[in-house]
C-alpha cells in the first residue's frame, strides 16, 4: 500500500507545467468559419422562404399591377435580411441575449424600433414604386399599424430562433469546459501518482543509510547521492509527460544500488540496455515502477537470493522494456497491481492503443513488459507534446 509521499509542487528551477491538451487555435478558427457559414445559410434560407410565401400570397388586389407589388415585397425582404443582420451584430456586441439572464425588456424595445424602421422602408418603397398606393388607402393608419405588428412578430420570431441557437451553443460550451476541467483534474491526479515515492522504501533506505554512516561513511555518502538522484527523477516525473530512457535507467540504477544495501546478496540485479535507445521517450517512472514491483514481490518475500533482470530492446517498430524477477505470480489483489495499473493508464494516454503492458509468469520468472510503439519521428514529437 503506498501513499502519495511527495506532492508534485512545481519547483522554482523546473519548467512550467504544460497545459493539458485542449482544442488548439487552428481548430477554433475553423469552428468560427463553420459557424459564420451556418449563420448565413440560415439567414438566406429563412428570408427566401418568407419572400416566397409573401409573393405567393399576393392576391389580385386593387393595389396596382402584380410586378410592382412583387418588387416592393422583394425589396422589403432584402431590407429585412439587412436589418436582421445589423440586429444580430448589435445583439452580439451588447451581449443582450448571450448571457445567463437575457435583457428581455431591452430586446423587446429594440424590436419595436426594428419593426418601425422596416415598415418605414416598406412605405418608402411603396411610395417610390407604386406611387404610394398603400397610404392612399382610406385605412392607411390601420394598415401601417397592422404591418408594424406583423413585422414585430417576424423579428420576434427571428430573435427567438437566434436565442435558441445561442443557448444551445452555450450549453455545448459549458459541457466542453466541464470536460476540459475533468481532463485537467485527471492530469493532476496522474502527475501526483507519478511523483509517488514508496514511503516504505524511503524510510527503510534512510535507516540503511544511517547504519552505513557509522560502518562505511563513503558508501553512505554515495547512497545519499543515489537517493537524491532517484527522488529528483521521481519529482520531475510529476512534471513532464515523457523522459529519456537514459534518465530513467539512471534512476533505476540508483534505486537498485540503494536496495542492494538493504538486501545484500538477496538482490541480484542485472541491467541490460540495448545501444541507441538513450533518447527514446518513455513515460516517467514506467521502468522504475516495474523494477520496484519486482523487488517488492520478488526480493522482499524471498528468504534466499532473488534475481532481477532489467532489459530494454528495439524490436521492429517498437521498444520493449522488460523487467523479470524470480518467483511466482500471485493471484493479484487490487493493491498489488496498483503500480502496473498506473503504468498501463499512462501508456494508453501517451502512446495510444499500440502501447501495452503485460505481466506473466514463465519458468519460475515473473515477467513484466511494456511495449512502446516508436513509428516515426513525428509520432515521437506528438507524444512529447
Amino acid at each position, binding site marked *: 500500500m503506498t501513499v502519495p509521499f511527495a506532492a508534485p509542487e512545481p519547483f522554482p528551477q523546473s519548467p512550467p507545467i504544460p497545459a493539458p491538451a485542449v482544442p488548439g487555435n487552428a481548430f477554433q478558427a475553423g469552428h468560427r468559419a463553420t459557424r459564420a457559414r451556418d449563420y448565413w445559410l440560415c439567414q438566406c434560407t429563412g428570408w427566401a422562404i418568407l419572400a416566397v410565401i409573401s409573393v405567393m400570397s399576393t392576391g389580385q388586389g386593387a393595389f396596382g399591377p402584380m410586378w410592382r407589388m412583387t418588387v416592393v415585397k422583394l425589396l422589403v425582404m432584402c431590407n429585412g435580411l439587412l436589418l436582421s443582420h445589423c440586429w444580430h451584430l448589435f445583439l452580439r456586441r451588447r451581449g443582450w441575449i448571450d448571457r445567463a439572464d437575457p435583457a428581455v425588456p431591452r430586446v423587446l424595445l429594440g424590436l419595436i424600433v426594428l419593426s418601425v424602421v422596416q415598415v418605414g422602408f416598406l412605405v418608402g418603397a411603396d411610395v417610390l414604386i407604386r406611387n404610394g398606393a398603400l397610404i392612399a388607402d382610406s385605412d392607411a393608419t390601420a394598415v401601417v399599424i397592422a404591418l408594424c405588428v406583423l413585422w414585430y412578430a417576424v423579428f420576434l420570431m427571428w430573435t427567438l430562433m437566434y436565442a435558441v441557437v445561442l443557448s444551445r451553443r452555450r450549453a455545448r460550451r459549458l459541457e466542453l469546459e466541464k470536460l476540459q476541467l475533468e481532463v485537467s483534474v485527471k492530469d493532476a491526479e496522474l502527475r501526483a501518482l507519478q511523483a509517488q515515492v514508496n514511503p*516504505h522504501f524511503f*524510510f*527503510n533506505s*534512510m*535507516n*540503511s543509510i544511517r*547504519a552505513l554512516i557509522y560502518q562505511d561513511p563513503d558508501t553512505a555518502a554515495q547512497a545519499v547521492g543515489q537517493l537524491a538522484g532517484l527522488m529528483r527523477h521521481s519529482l520531475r516525473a510529476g512534471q513532464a509527460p515523457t523522459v529519456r530512457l537514459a534518465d530513467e535507467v539512471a534512476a533505476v540504477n540508483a534505486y537498485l544500488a540503494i536496495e542492494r*544495501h538493504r538486501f*545484500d546478496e538477496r538482490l541480484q540485479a542485472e541491467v541490460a540496455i540495448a545501444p541507441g535507445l538513450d533518447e527514446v521517450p518513455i513515460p516517467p517512472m514506467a521502468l522504475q515502477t516495474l523494477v520496484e514491483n519486482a523487488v517488492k514481490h520478488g526480493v522482499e*518475500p524471498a528468504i534466499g537470493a532473488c534475481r532481477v533482470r532489467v532489459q530494454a530492446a528495439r524490436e521492429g517498430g517498437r521498444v520493449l522494456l522488460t523487467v523479470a524477477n524470480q518467483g511466482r505470480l500471485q493471484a493479484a489483489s487490487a493493491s498489488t497491481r496498483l503500480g502496473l495499473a498506473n503504468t498501463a493508464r499512462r501508456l494508453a494516454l501517451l502512446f495510444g492503443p499500440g502501447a501495452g503492458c503485460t505481466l506473466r509468469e514463465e519458468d519460475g520468472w515473473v515477467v513484466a513488459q511494456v511495449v512502446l510503439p516508436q513509428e516515426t519521428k513525428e509520432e515521437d514529437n506528438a507524444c512529447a507534446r
Partner: protein
Amino acid sequence: MRALIVDDERLARNELRRLLAAHPALEVVGEAANPIEARAAIAALAPDLVFLDVQMPGGSGFDLLASLDAAPAVIFTTAFDQYALRAFDVSALDYLLKPIEPARLAHALRKFEARLPLPSAAPPPQQAPAADGKVFIKDGERCWFVALEQIMLFESEGNYTRVYFDANRPLLLRSLNQLEARLDPERFLRVSRRQIVNLDFVTGIAPGPGSGMVLTLKGEIKVPMSRRRAAEFRQLNGL
C-alpha cells in the same frame, strides 16, 4: 535483560544494535533474519524482549507471534506499517519507526522495564507457560496480546479454539488439548470435552440436567459441565 533482534535487513539489525549499545542494562543475545530463524532463536535463547520487524520474508512479525505458544514481550520496529499496528490494543505493546530515534527507543525501554516484575536473584526455571504468560491472537486483520488470566473461556471449534475475553471472541489456531497442557490447572478447569473455564470468572454454579452442573460466567455466559467432570469437581471441592 536479554533481547533478540529480528529483522531481515542486516543494516537495520546493525543500526538497532548500535542504538542499544547506549543501554547497557540490555544485552543483545541474538539476531534473526526471518521468522524461521526467529522461532528457533526464541526457543533457544528465551529472550526477555524481542525487537520484531513487521515485514519479513516468509511471514510477518504478527504471523510469527501468532505461531508461538507463549508470546514474548515485543517491541515492533517498522519503516511504514503503523497502519497495521493500529489493529492492536496499543497499550499492550509498543512500536518504533525506522530510522529509530534514540529518545523514542529510551522511552519504549523505560515503558517495558516498568511493566516487568521485580527481578529475582535466580531466574525462574523456563516452564511454559509462565503464570503471567501472554498469548498473541491473530484473527483475520485483528490482533490481540492477551494475558492468559484475562481469558474466561476456551471453547473448541474443530482444530480451532474460540477464546472469550472482554467482549472479544477471536479464533485461535490451536486445539483445546494443546492449550490445556499450557494452562495453570489451579485456575483453569476443563468442564467438558469442548470447554475450559477460568474459575476466576465463575459467578454461579447450579445443578444441571442429569447429575451435571451449569456454571455461570461473567457476562451471563452459561457453560454446562459434564456429569463426569461435575463428579470430579464435587470431589475436588469436597461438595
